[in-house]
């Protein structure tokens, strides 16, 4: 089974973690925090889409030992 390319997903997760870290710091202005939270929602939505894509690609691969139907 070939390895799935999770580069994009890893990148999105990294961006989300950095954004969450900024929010945890609590030093953003209310407007900046609100804007960053919306960015997080957009990143999470993209990550969800990427995960669905990877899941589809993964399930398209034949399971180990699975015979091909003739």
């Amino acid at each position: 089974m070939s390895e799935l390319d999770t580069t994009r997903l890893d990148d999105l997760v990294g961006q989300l973690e950095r954004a969450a870290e900024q929010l945890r710091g609590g030093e953003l202005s209310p407007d900046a925090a609100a804007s960053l939270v919306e960015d997080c929602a957009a990143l999470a939505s993209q990550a969800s889409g990427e995960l669905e894509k990877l899941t589809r690609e993964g399930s398209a691969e034949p399971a180990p030992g699975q015979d091909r139907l003739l």
Partner: protein
Amino acid sequence: MSRRTDQRREAAFALYEAEISGRTVDEVLESRDAPEFTAALARAADTHRDRLGGLIARNANGWELDRIAALERSVMLVALAEVAYPESIPSETPIPPAGAIEEAVEVAKEYCGSSAPAFVNGVLDAAFDELRQNPDGDE
């Protein structure tokens, strides 16, 4: 978009921000200087999170609560809180379940993934049915 619609969205985002930042809902609301309606909604959703989360989980077709995307979960908690705890929300006219679903679906369309609006619609519809049958529920 009506003022109340904006404030429902803000309440959901306050819950979401609290979850991803690890701050409390009260801390987030204070930092945002949230208006009364937004704050009441977010606090009601947070205070009754166990009961409302149970309603979501039982009607989410096998999805466990912590496996549902955080913003979708927050949007649904706010919708359920407004209908289930009208006494906690300053409003002259309580929102009916259909209105709460419509508002939640609109937020999901704008900010969540492509499958989220249908998911939110289905879960809330079933959860409100359960709420009608058991309005007092178990806290």
